[in-house]
């Protein structure tokens, strides 16, 4: 703050404020983002008396500027003189908390929550709490929505009379006639419950929860499901049955699929919050229903939770519950009509094998895996393949390999390049689990075929895949199986394939080591320097630069240098450029 006193004349507030008023939004935005610099220049005193009032008065600007302002003010405590003066920041933030644009308002609330912690308990009651009350009773819905997020930060630190007022305000907002406000209140219900004394949770929160959970709008009801998790965690086990379960049961059978979806989506959390007994009696049938829901969205959300739900079942009855209640539903989902449901299931189903053990997996799950490996939707097959490691641990991958191979081959030739890309990414993992022999026999051809795919992204991924395979199987394997094929492509009539050779060399040289690189790869690269296509030639220059460090230095001088020098005089300016770059990087000049 040293600069603040002496430099007043240098940075009169008028100039700075002029910047904040500039016609160009971008410039205004820049100055707002540097608001802390301005405050620093002004010093704490003038920041409080001049800058903040100005900011409070001129809150009519583009939302982008307001957002920046709301964020800045959250970090302003030191700049106004520390926690003693932090309440000066409340007026501008209060106005920002009433703005229409949600992003701005949320940021203002975030900043308010932040600086609430910097208030002393007295200031909190004198300055902060009245602001919350004003917002809570504002005319327009925006201020009331903002208020919802502020109750929980001041409640723990105020006197019991003020606490009673805060509870009253929260109650009012929960039955606001604007659905936006009820949604905001419902979304903060859990958070607010956490800071309340247990008695009030039982007396106040439960009734609000019940009311919101039966709101006329499903967008409100579904938020109550979220709150359910926090509330159930707070209550003692013996009260759950009477206070929470009726509402939860009702939500699981709500007529709106959005609410049921939310229940499915939060199922693991709910399960943990209500404990094992209620899970056994209530949640298992509820979960079965969700898995059989008439809406695919709900089934997919539930299918996603199958593994987690089973994992968290009480150990004594876990296997029995899965086998008699869950598995029959899962079996049906394997042949669901909706591909999202099937692919959600495929992404978790393999996890069941660790829970059920070897025998059950072979007897009950394996047929399902195999069915999904043959599914018509590539995403389902991919999800199974990407989780192979779970099964590998339990029963070994050999059980699957018969069906695995056709599935992989089909995915490898899928018409959608994103699918091909995805399967390529699992290749190194698969190769590791299936072993080098199986790989050479069945998968090697595929990996090479990808190199001449007509989509660049696939060729690129294939190149990278080769590198990872070489890292796994070693240089010798590379020399025998991969390198000859890669180098053979250097004579391909298609220049794109010739370039792929270069890209492969770039990727493989390091993993293959000096010997292979110098003796086998380098001659091919050098030969390509006379290619007709300029793209190939400048990629030769780039490749030489890349593999230079792996080549022994005599070859670098005697073979690489003359070629690069020649390329540096090429008629094509890109070739020249990259050749010169290579020369200077390899220090051959």
């Amino acid at each position, binding site marked *: 703050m040293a600069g603040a006193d002496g430099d007043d004349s240098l940075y009169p507030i008028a100039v700075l404020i002029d910047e904040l008023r500039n016609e160009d939004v971008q410039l205004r935005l820049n100055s707002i983002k540097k608001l802390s610099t301005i405050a620093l220049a002004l010093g704490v005193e003038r920041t409080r008396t001049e800058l903040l009032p100005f900011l409070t008065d001129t809150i009519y600007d583009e939302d982008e500027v307001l957002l920046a302002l709301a964020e800045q003010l959250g970090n302003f405590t*030191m700049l106004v003189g520390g926690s003693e003066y932090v309440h000066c920041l409340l007026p501008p933030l209060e106005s920002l908390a009433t703005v229409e*644009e949600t992003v701005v308002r949320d940021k203002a609330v975030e900043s308010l929550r932040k600086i609430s912690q910097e208030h002393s308990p007295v200031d909190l009651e004198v300055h902060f709490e009245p602001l919350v009350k004003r917002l809570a009773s504002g005319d327009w819905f925006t201020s009331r929505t903002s208020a919802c997020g502020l109750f929980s930060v001041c409640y723990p630190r105020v006197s019991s009379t003020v606490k009673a007022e805060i509870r009253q305000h929260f109650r009012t907002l929960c039955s606001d006639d604007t659905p*936006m406000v009820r949604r905001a209140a419902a979304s903060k219900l859990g958070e607010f419950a956490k800071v309340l004394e247990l008695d009030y949770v039982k007396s106040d929160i439960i009734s609000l929860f019940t009311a919101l959970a039966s709101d006329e709008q*499903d967008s409100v009801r579904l938020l109550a499901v979220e709150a359910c998790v926090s509330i159930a965690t707070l209550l003692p086990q013996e009260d759950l049955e009477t206070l929470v379960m009726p509402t939860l049961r009702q939500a699981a059978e709500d007529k709106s*699929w959005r609410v049921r979806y939310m229940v499915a989506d939060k199922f693991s959390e709910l399960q943990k919050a209500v404990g094992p007994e209620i899970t056994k009696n209530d949640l298992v049938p509820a979960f079965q229903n969700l898995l059989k829901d008439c809406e695919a969205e709900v089934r997919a959300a539930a299918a996603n939770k199958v593994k987690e739900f089973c994992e968290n079942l009480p150990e004594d009855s876990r296997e029995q519950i899965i086998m008699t209640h869950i598995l029959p539903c899962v079996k049906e989902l394997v042949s669901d009509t909706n591909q999202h449901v099937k692919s959600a299931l495929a992404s978790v189903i393999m996890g069941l094998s660790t829970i059920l053990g070897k025998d059950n997996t072979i007897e009950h799950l394996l047929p399902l895996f195999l069915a999904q490996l043959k599914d018509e939707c590539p995403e389902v097959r991919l999800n199974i393949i990407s989780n192979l490691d779970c099964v590998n641990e339990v029963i070994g991958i050999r059980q699957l390999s018969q069906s695995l191979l056709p599935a992989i081959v089909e995915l490898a030739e899928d018409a959608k390049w994103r699918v091909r890309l995805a399967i390529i990414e699992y290749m190194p993992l698969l190769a590791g689990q299936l072993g080098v022999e199986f790989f050479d026999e069945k998968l090697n051809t595929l990996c090479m075929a990808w190199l001449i795919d007509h989509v660049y992204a696939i060729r690129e991924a294939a190149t990278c895949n080769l590198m990872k395979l070489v890292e796994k199987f070693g240089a010798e394997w590379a020399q025998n199986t991969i390198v000859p094929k890669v180098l053979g492509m250097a004579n391909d009539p298609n220049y794109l394939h010739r370039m792929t050779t270069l890209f492969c060399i770039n990727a493989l040289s390091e993993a293959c080591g000096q010997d292979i690189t110098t003796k086998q790869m380098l001659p091919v690269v050098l030969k390509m320097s006379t290619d007709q296509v*300029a793209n190939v030639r400048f990629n030769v220059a780039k490749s030489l630069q890349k593999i230079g460090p792996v080549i022994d230095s005599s070859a670098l001088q005697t073979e690489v240098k003359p070629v690069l020098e020649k390329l540096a005089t090429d008629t094509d300016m890109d070739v020249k450029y990259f050749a010169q770059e290579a020369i200077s990087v390899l220090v051959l000049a």
Partner: protein
Amino acid sequence: MSAISASEKVDGFTRKSMRKAQKQRKSQGSSQYRTQSAPVELSPLPQLKDAPSTEQQELFTQKLQQCCMLFDFMDSVTDLKSKEIKRATLNELVDYVSTNRGVLVETTYPEITTMICTNIFRTLPPSDNPDFDPEEDEPTLEASWPHVQLVYEFLLRFLENPDFQPSIAKRHIDQKFVLQLLELFDSEDPRERDFLKTILHRIYGKFLGLRAFIRKQINNIFLRFIYETEHFNGVAELLEILGSIINGFALPLKAEHKQFLMKVLIPLHTAKALALFHAQLAYCVVQFLEKDPTLTEPVIRGLLKFWPKTCSQKEVMFLGEIEEILDVIEPTQFKKIQEPLFKQISKCVANPHFQVAERALYFWNNEYILSLIEENIDKVLPIMFGSLYRISKEHWNPTIVALVYNVLKTLMEMNCTLFDELTSSYKADRQREKKKEQERDELWKKLDELRLSSSALVQNNSHGLPGVQNNNNNNNSNNNDTQDKSAEAAAVTSENKDPDDSVAANESSPCAK
């Protein structure tokens, strides 16, 4: 997967038309949560017209009750007979209430509303296509339409029946009814939304007690659309109804209505899907201004605040709306907003997107606007001059340059002396601007130094602003599927005649040479 054709296998990029064609086959959805037990088979009742008049009333009720049975239309083979019976009965009911007098006795109202509510009020199914683009994609049609359509038809005839008594009906067609009706406007099926539009209009006309409630709920739907979900299929239909509601507002306008204009209609302009309802929206705005011209200034300032930053398509729409407003503007109002407005217009004429520039320059073809400009030429010309002068020399598009010349000529004719002054001071002005720019840089440099020297107060988070661009969001972002992955292949020389070059869209594009 088996349906993939050979051509698709070759290029790997499913063409949109093909995807569409594949989807069209099953673009039907329905969400009747089937808590009820399986439908009981219906048996046909005697025709109403054959029944003796003493029994007609009883039969009418029975038929209404029969029509409360719901069927699963996603399954096209079950209950065919019962479905047909219900369809015929509904047809008969429609006919009965539209041609007969004296059939709407008080006791039938509850039966009628129960039948309607059971059939049409349902949670809409999740969209088949999570990123449904109403402009591009085919909507998912309501599968149970063969029945639902007739129920809507029936509801409409019921409301339009000369014997219909709102005072009795209001016990059933209440706030809850209206609320559920409004939720249905989110239906993806345009046929359904069209019916809803007419029905809501009738209800608004007949139930005076519900009017304020309806307006408020529409408000809430719009606000949720703008600030929360950005998704609601029926915005255009609701705006269309509002257009005629606004038309009937009494003067002076109530504060509630003005608030609706400023806090709902103007922010609606920020929506990404503006194109779908812009015509209706602009109509509503202009209706307001014709009612109360003093609203012109806040409205135009509001539009300027939400002016699209990156979406040229939306910018063209905004310009269209501004022209509609200028068509009805009063000269006194024009004076109040001419400065900020023409600053924006001068940016638009300089827009590198020629459609934006062209749309803005078309203002000069509008006689009324021309007369307003001429009246205020001393204010307008200095604002416009810089952009026009620069564009006349720099714009890439010859049509724009030609248009700009015409505009310059028109402006010159309006005030020749001012035009000459501006021409001669153009250079000096540019230089002054440059100098100011430099001074600003210097100032900030000094401030930054100061900040460095007192680094004890590192408090700033000037990065990572997520931005509120969702306001002015656009659809400009490239489709990733077609993005050029091979930027390195900067050249394609004459030698390449590889057959796969032409099909691989991502490789044939970068023809640098």
